[in-house]
C-alpha cells in the first residue's frame, strides 16, 4: 500500500477512536527499530508485529515461544499498546479476537501444544472475519526440538469451512518480514493468519535488517463510512469479497456470531445464507491464492529435478542444490513462502517441467501428500523427510536423493 494511503488510513482511524489517539501520545519508545541487528527469531517476530502496527498481544507461557511474550511485555506498553498474559491459551486467542473486533491489530504466540487450544478462537475469527495474527513456534510433542509437524494442523485445525493463510519464514529476517505481511494479509482479508515458525529459527540469532518505518508497507482493514442504517456488516461487493468493518461501540450494533449469519449479521439458519457465507469466506482467500502464496525459485530455469520446501528446510535444500549443480546435475529449489493456501498453480507448473519433484520436510512426510496430489502423476515424486528433532543437513538430503536416477 502506498504511504499516502497508509497515512490517510491512520488519520481516519485516529479521528474515529479517541482512546487510540491518547494511547499514541503515550509512545515512549520507537515502534520501528530501523537498522542492522543481531537478533533472535522470536524477537524479530515481535519487531515485525510492532512495525505492522500491532497494539494488542496476549500470550500464555510455553517454550520455545516465551521470548515473544517477554519482549512484547516490555515493548508493547512502551509504544502505547496493551500486553496480556492470559490465564491459558483459550484466553489469549479469544482476547485477541475481542480486541480485534474492538479495532486492535492483535496477535498471540504459542508453540505446538499450545496451538491445540487456539482452534475455537481461530474458528470464531474465521466466522466473524476478525483480523488476527498467530505465531506458532513448532516443537516436537512434549520437547523443544525442531519440527515441521504442525503443517497440516495450521490449515485444518479449526472445525468448519475456511481457507487458512499460513506463512512459513525460513530465517530471522523472514520472521520479521513475514510477521509484517501476516498483519497486512489479516487486515486485507479480515481473517486469522498464522506465522508458522519453528524452534530452529525462533531461537536462532541472525543478521536482521529493519527498514525505515516509511519503507515498511502497512495495510489497515477497510473501515466503513456508511451510516448504521445503510451498513450491512457481512455484505461484500462480490462472492469472494471482504466486508467493510465497523468495530465495536460505534453505534453499528452488529452481532458477531459464530453461528450461521446473513449479511445483516442476524443468526439465521437458512441453507442459502449458510452456503453463501461459507462460499465467500474460503473464496476471499482462495481467489487470491497466487497473490498470497508466493514462491521463490532457485535454479529452476534449466532444472529437471526440483526440491520443494518451506520454512527452515529451504536452507539445506539450497546448499544441497549447490553441491548437485557443481556436479553438473540440473537441480533447482522451490521455496514456498506460504504453504497455505496451497500454491496449486506453482506446483502444477513445476510438475509439467520436472522429471522429479521431491518434497523436503522435517516431519514424517505430511505436506508431501499435497504436493503429490498437485503433481497429478505428471512427474515422479519423492519424499525427503527427517523426523528426529533436527533440521536436515545438505548431506542427508543428497543421500536421500542418491537413489533416484534423475539425480545420479
Amino acid at each position, binding site marked *: 500500500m502506498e504511504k499516502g494511503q497508509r497515512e490517510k488510513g491512520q488519520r481516519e482511524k485516529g479521528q474515529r477512536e479517541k482512546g487510540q489517539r491518547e494511547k499514541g501520545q503515550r509512545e515512549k519508545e520507537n515502534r520501528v527499530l530501523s537498522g542492522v541487528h*543481531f537478533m533472535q527469531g522470536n524477537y524479530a517476530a515481535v519487531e515485525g508485529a510492532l512495525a505492522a502496527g500491532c497494539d494488542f498481544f496476549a500470550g500464555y507461557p510455553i517454550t520455545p515461544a516465551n521470548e515473544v511474550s517477554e519482549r512484547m511485555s516490555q515493548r508493547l506498553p512502551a509504544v502505547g499498546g496493551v500486553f496480556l498474559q492470559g490465564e491459558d491459551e483459550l484466553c489469549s486467542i479469544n482476547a485477541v479476537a475481542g480486541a480485534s473486533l474492538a479495532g486492535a491489530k492483535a496477535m498471540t504466540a504459542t508453540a505446538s501444544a499450545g496451538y491445540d487450544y487456539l482452534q475455537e478462537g481461530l474458528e470464531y475469527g474465521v466466522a466473524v472475519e476478525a483480523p488476527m495474527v498467530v505465531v506458532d513456534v513448532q516443537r516436537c510433542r512434549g520437547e523443544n526440538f525442531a519440527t515441521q509437524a504442525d503443517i497440516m494442523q495450521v490449515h485444518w485445525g479449526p472445525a468448519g469451512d475456511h481457507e487458512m493463510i499460513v506463512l512459513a519464514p525460513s530465517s530471522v529476517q523472514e520472521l520479521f518480514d513475514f510477521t509484517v505481511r501476516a498483519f497486512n494479509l489479516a487486515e486485507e482479508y479480515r481473517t486469522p493468519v498464522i506465522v508458522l515458525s519453528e524452534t530452529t529459527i525462533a*531461537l536462532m540469532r*541472525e543478521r536482521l535488517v529493519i527498514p525505515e518505518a516509511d519503507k515498511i508497507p502497512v495495510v489497515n482493514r477497510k473501515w466503513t463510512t456508511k451510516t448504521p442504517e445503510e451498513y450491512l456488516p457481512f455484505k461484500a461487493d462480490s462472492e469472494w469479497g471482504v466486508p467493510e468493518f465497523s468495530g465495536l461501540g460505534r453505534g453499528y450494533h452488529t452481532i458477531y456470531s459464530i453461528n450461521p449469519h446473513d449479511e445483516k449479521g442476524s443468526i439465521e439458519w437458512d441453507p442459502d445464507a449458510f452456503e453463501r457465507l461459507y462460499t465467500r469466506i474460503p473464496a476471499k482467500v482462495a481467489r487470491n491464492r497466487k497473490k498470497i502464496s508466493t514462491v521463490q525459485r*532457485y535454479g529452476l530455469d534449466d532444472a529437471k529435478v526440483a526440491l520443494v520446501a518451506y520454512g527452515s528446510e529451504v536452507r539445506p535444500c*539450497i*546448499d544441497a542444490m*549447490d553441491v548437485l549443480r557443481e556436479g553438473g546435475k540440473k537441480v533447482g529449489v522451490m521455496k514456498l513462502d506460504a504453504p497455505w493456501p496451497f500454491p496449486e498453480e506453482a506446483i502444477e507448473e513445476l510438475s509439467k517441467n520436472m522429471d522429479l519433484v521431491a518434497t523436503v520436510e522435517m516431519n514424517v512426510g505430511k505436506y508431501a501428500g499435497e504436493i503429490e496430489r498437485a503433481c497429478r502423476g505428471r512427474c515422479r515424486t519423492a519424499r525427503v523427510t527427517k523426523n528426529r528433532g533436527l533440521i536436515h*543437513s*545438505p548431506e542427508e538430503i543428497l543421500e536421500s536423493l542418491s537413489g533416484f536416477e534423475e539425480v545420479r
Partner: protein
Amino acid sequence: MSSATKATSIRFSGFGGQGIILSAVVLGDALVIHRGLYAAQTQSYGSEARGGQCQSELIVSEKPILTPIRATNDILVAMFQTAFNTYVDSLRKGGALFVDSELVKDLSRVPPETACHSIPATQIASGLGNKMAANMVMLGYFAGVTNMVGLEHLDSALAENVREQFLDLNKKAIRAGFDLSLGKA
C-alpha cells in the same frame, strides 16, 4: 551461492552458568553489527541441554548462511572437560581448539594438526574478582588470536547484551584475555 565453503563454524561449549551462549551472542553481535558479516547462532535446548552441558554454535560468513548447523566445526571452545569430550570429535582436522587449562586437562582426543590454545581463563577471572567472567577472558583471548573482531566491537556488543552492573567486569575480562594473547599478561 553455497555458504558451506566460505563459512567458519565455531562451537562454544561448557556447562550451564559459564556464559557459553553469551560468548557466542556477543561475538556474533560484534561481527554482524561492526564488521558487516553474516552470522547464525544456535544453541542446545530441551533434554539435550540437561545434565549441565551447554553448547552454542556460531557460523560466520561473508555471505548469507543457509544450513545453520554444521556437522564439523572449524573452531572448538571448551570450558569444561565433559563438554570437550562431547564435542571434540566434531572438530575438523587442522582446526583450532581453545580450552580452559584448569578445567580441560585431558586433550588426548585432539585431532591431528589442531592449533591448541590452553589458557587459565577461570583463574584469571577469579583474579578479577569473579570466575563467572572466564567466558569473557576466553573471548578476549580468542579475539586476539583470530583477529576476527576488535576489542571496541566486543565492548559495544557487550553493552547490548549484558546488564549494566556486569559491564565493567566483562570488559576487564575481555581485556585480560586479549592481553594474554599478545603475550602481555
